[in-house]
């Protein structure tokens, strides 16, 4: 379960990277790649092990100057967890 204090990080095999030729972020892993849309990339960039989930939400709401993003962010984070792209660190 994702809670306010949950800290998230990329899974050991995964790398988030800007691809100039595709003009988008991609998630790279053994012999595979996921092409990310803008919002997904912004969320996953913040999964760097340094901040809590509530900090992530705050940072994104400030960055996009929008309130009420929590459930959208939680949905994507949960999907990323299910895919194994990210892990719960604590």
């Amino acid at each position, binding site marked *: 379960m994702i809670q306010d204090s949950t800290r998230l990080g990329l899974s050991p*095999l995964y790398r988030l*990277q800007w691809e100039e030729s595709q003009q988008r972020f991609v998630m*790279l892993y053994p012999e595979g790649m996921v092409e990310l849309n803008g919002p997904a990339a912004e969320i996953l960039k913040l999964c760097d092990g340094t901040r809590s989930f509530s900090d992530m939400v705050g940072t994104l709401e400030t960055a996009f100057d929008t309130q009420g993003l929590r459930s959208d962010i939680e949905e994507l984070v949960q999907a990323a967890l299910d895919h194994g792209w990210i892990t719960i660190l604590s």
Partner: protein
Amino acid sequence: MAGLPSYPNGSPRWLLAELTYRCPLQCPYCSNPVDYAMHQNELSTEEWCRVLSEARALGAVQLGLSGGEPLIRQDLSALVLHARELGYYTNLITSGYGLTAERIADLKSSGLDHIQISIQAPEKTLNDTLAGTESFEQKKKVARLIKAQGYPMVLCVVIHRQNIHLMSDILAMATELGADYLELANTQYYGWAHLNRDQLMPTREQFETAEVIAQAYKEKVKGQMKIYYVVPDYYEDRPKPCMNGWGTTFLTVAPDGLALPCHEARILPGLDCPNVRDFSIREIWEESPAFKHFRHFDWMEEPCKSCPEKIKDFGGCRCQAYLLTGNLNATDPVCSKSPLHHTVEEAIHLAEQDRVSGSPKPLIFRNSLNSKTLG
């Protein structure tokens, strides 16, 4: 009215760098060309670095370092370092044979992202027989060394009639070795595997039994081990999509610099694949006749030509069509709509005859002597 379907186009995403055809093992299902011994003029370190740079500039991001056995190249770490600096995700695809703790540490410090090793069978005698070299204990040791260095354990086992009955043991071995990923690759019949098809192809019943075991295990270890199951397409109704579209995603560079839209394409007559020694990767990808050859639907014959599924499977595998029918423009005979589908059924029948004969043909091992004789 809808327009004509358009063939996908794109820049390379995947670069398979076959660094060498040399290999200490002799697996009879090797996908390298049977005549590999005639193509020994390997690219130099500088030439490989140029290939990596040029392909990266076009958009390639996944890099497979393969062979033969890529560990034989003394410049492997230098190539990894260059690739990693360019931003590739670097995958080393190796037998693991000869890998030491020092070499793994060296590759890791050069930026290698992941190591996939292969084991032939879950027990020593069969593993060593199939590999043509005593290697079982060493491979298991290497699997543990890879884990110890903080790499995920990505294990590949090629499945065929000689080991398919051991599926449960294969899965148990993967767990024992702490595999994070397990690729169960049913043999695809190209190269040496095509030569040994009668001795390697399982029966439908064998493959269905093994698949049930593998799928059940996949559920059981969900969350701990990811299992990829590569289906044996001789038992499918529809062919696999040719390389995700010819010359749309994949680029292979063979040890001698030949640039191929698929790593088997060297066998296709008249394709005349370009060499990276003569052309830039951009010229090869965008302008070479070989890369443009099937990058459209116009070459197709019936039933592909008017088939709505052509946009999904691109007529199936060109190399398989050629190997089974002698015509590289034919519908992949795996397709049940193919007028030559019986060639697949005959292949299955021949394998079954070999199995029940009581005196199966000996396996032809992949080595230089056999390559020079048969190539």
